[in-house]
């Protein structure tokens, strides 16, 4: 019996039985509190991923042949709920959520074998190098080039705002193999080894003061053709791939997470005797409504998938709802705490080690990263509402 078969629900196991078993696993193997030091925290997170993988509890939606659990959608939802409940960390880097689905769908047999297991186990960390200084919202204008030379590509150019680039072992990049004007018709997917000659990562400081992203430079970097995903010049359609179902199940995890964050802020307000103020209550009420709607919306996405196999309109609004909530709750926390909220971690009077202050700054990215709010609204307007395409923009 493989590990996955052991960890997986037997056909007769009910959702509640599966839940109980997961809960026991997360309790028995809980990694404890995260270390404060970023490097230690990273190593700690890797160890936890390995623990999950080694016991067959990793990759809920992944095919079994790549080390996943291949759970039914209903069981994935339970998995995500229990993950949130146990407060254990999720995957590192951008690999599992974004990269893996593309490899599963478009990678060769050999590529899947080579990349997926180590990714799932946390042995290899991935970062996603799409954006460039001149190509953000307008990704098809990217200019990093790859020139074919025998059975290698020679890559030159620059990526920017690459999350986790400093920790990455592998970069999942988009490069131009077509003419400079070819736009989305001349783009190819390459996997670049972070330690290859000519790759340089320069940490970028973000506005919180941290270094979560970086610039990545490619200077005559040689990449085996075997590390290309899909065909040459046909990388663009791959950009849209995602394990939609796994993401939808993940929405439950997020709903649970925000529920908890809101409760924590309520507790703080109560301790400080602030809940009696009618204005404070009104704002908590509004946030409570939002967090419940996030949950109901996730449930609706899930039941659409269970019933029809496809997420419906509810899924297009979920990121916008969450980013608005995330920004608002931190903003409110600051208003609520007053000047005390302004204090940094080192100040003796800081509130909860400045988590709300840090969140206020960090969540500025919620409406920028992975596509800005404005771009998402455009997409909804055109794709969901069917409004006319902006004539000044390139055809889809």
């Amino acid at each position, binding site marked *: 019996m493989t590990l996955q078969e052991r960890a997986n629900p037997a056909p007769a196991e009910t959702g509640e039985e599966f839940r109980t078993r997961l809960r026991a696993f997360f309790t028995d193997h809980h990694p404890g509190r995260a270390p404060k030091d970023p490097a230690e925290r990273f190593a700690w997170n890797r160890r936890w991923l390995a623990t999950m993988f080694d016991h067959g509890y990793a990759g809920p939606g992944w095919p079994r042949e790549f080390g996943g659990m291949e759970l039914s959608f209903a069981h994935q939802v339970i998995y995500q709920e229990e993950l949130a409940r146990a407060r254990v960390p999720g995957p590192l880097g951008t690999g599992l959520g974004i990269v893996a689905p593309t490899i599963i769908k478009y990678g060769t047999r050999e590529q899947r074998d080579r990349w997926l297991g180590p990714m799932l186990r946390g042995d290899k960390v991935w970062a996603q190098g799409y954006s460039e200084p001149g190509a953000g919202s*307008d990704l098809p*204008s990217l200019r990093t080039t790859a020139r074919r030379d025998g059975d290698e590509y020679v890559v030159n150019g620059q990526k920017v705002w690459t999350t986790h680039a400093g920790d990455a072992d592998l970069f999942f990049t988009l490069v131009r193999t077509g003419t400079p004007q070819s736009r989305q018709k001349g783009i190819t997917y390459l996997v670049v080894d972070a330690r290859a000659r000519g790759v340089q990562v320069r940490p970028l*400081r973000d506005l919180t003061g941290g270094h979560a992203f970086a610039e990545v430079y490619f200077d005559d970097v040689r990449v085996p053709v075997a590390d290309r995903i899909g065909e040459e010049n046909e990388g663009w359609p791959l950009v849209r791939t995602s394990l939609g179902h796994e993401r939808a199940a993940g929405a439950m995890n997020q709903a649970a997470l925000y529920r908890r964050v809101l409760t924590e802020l309520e507790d703080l307000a109560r301790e400080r005797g602030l809940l009696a103020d009618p204005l404070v209550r009104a704002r908590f009420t509004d946030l409570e409504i939002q967090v419940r709607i996030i949950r109901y919306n996730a449930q609706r996405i899930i039941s659409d998938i269970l019933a029809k196999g496809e997420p419906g309109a509810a899924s297009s609004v979920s990121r916008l709802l969450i980013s608005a909530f995330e920004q608002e709750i931190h903003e409110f926390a600051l208003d609520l705490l007053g*000047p005390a909220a302004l*204090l940094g971690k080192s100040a003796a009077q800081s509130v909860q080690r400045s988590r709300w202050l840090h969140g206020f700054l960090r969540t500025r990215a919620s409406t920028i990263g992975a596509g800005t709010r404005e771009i998402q609204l455009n997409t909804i307007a055109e794709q969901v509402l069917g409004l006319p395409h902006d004539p*000044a923009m390139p055809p889809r």
Partner: protein
Amino acid sequence: MSIGFTEDHEHLRELVRRFLQARSPSHEVRRLIRDGLGRDDEVWFQMAGQLGLQGIAIPEEYGGSGFGPTELGIVLEEMGRVLLVAPYFSTVALAGQTLTASDDEEARRRWLPGIADGSLTATLAVAEHGGTGARTEIATIAEPAGDGWALTGTKLFVLDGHTADLLLVVARAEDGIGLFGVEGDAAGVVRTELESLDLTRGMAEVVLDAAPAIRVGGDRPSGGWLPRVRDLVLASLAAEQIGGAARCLELAVEYAKVREQFGRPIGSFQAVKHKCAGLLIEIEAGRSAAYHAGFAVAEPGAEGAAAAALAKAYCSEVFTHAAKECIQIHGGIGYTWEHDAHLFLRRAKSSELLFGTPARQRARFADLVEI
């Protein structure tokens, strides 16, 4: 009362703007943040000596030029635009106006000339643990000691409190709330700079343990003038905030004109255009509120109090909103440390929460206008 600026006002604005453009460009602001010094001495003394900015709202008999909140507002608006790193707001807008408003000739004579010529820095310490600065929050005690007084208590969020030569401390005496001057390095004073959001303006905790003090207002209760200080402070802050907000919009508009995506400037997208136009509406409205407050607080009275509360509430929100949209319009670049947008966001949020949040100012305003 009319809201209008004279030609002299426009000259003042022009003069200050040119000076600050030359002496407080972004790289200077960042250098001062890095060095943690709080000011550039040369700039500070030029401001006092050549431009007379520290003395702008100080009567001539004490070395100032005798103007009032309107002129100070013009200077602060310009300083807000460049995030000037200097103890100007604390020394001039807080302490300078407090002393000028006081009815204590001796105190004015003792300290105002130093403020006007740049040789003395000062600040006002009001808030304690609650952070609101409300009278009910004041727990610092003042007791008679020898010819003077002794202060015991803890003040928080004191702007430039770790460097100021003079601390004007609001404390509770037997006969009521009063104002006391304490030298920054006096015995019994322990000052700690607090790590806090705004990198361009430091704040401190000041612990007083029987610190020797002089009462402002002689040994009389500070009567009618102390509450008026709050109105002057709020109007000043609103002016500074609106300067910062306007600069955020300028940065966003400049960028929206040059940043191209999809083969056209991002400013040609309605989503971006509407954001910018919406901000302009808020900023101009805020400006009207701030300018009105400046005129209104020149005279003591209920009109000034309401105008100042309104301006602080409104301009706080405008500034924070403008700073957030400035980041959003800059996209990924706006999220980096190297871009100034976050310095404005930090200043905006910090000013918003100090001296009474918008919610609190709204509540005061409602009381003042009897809603």
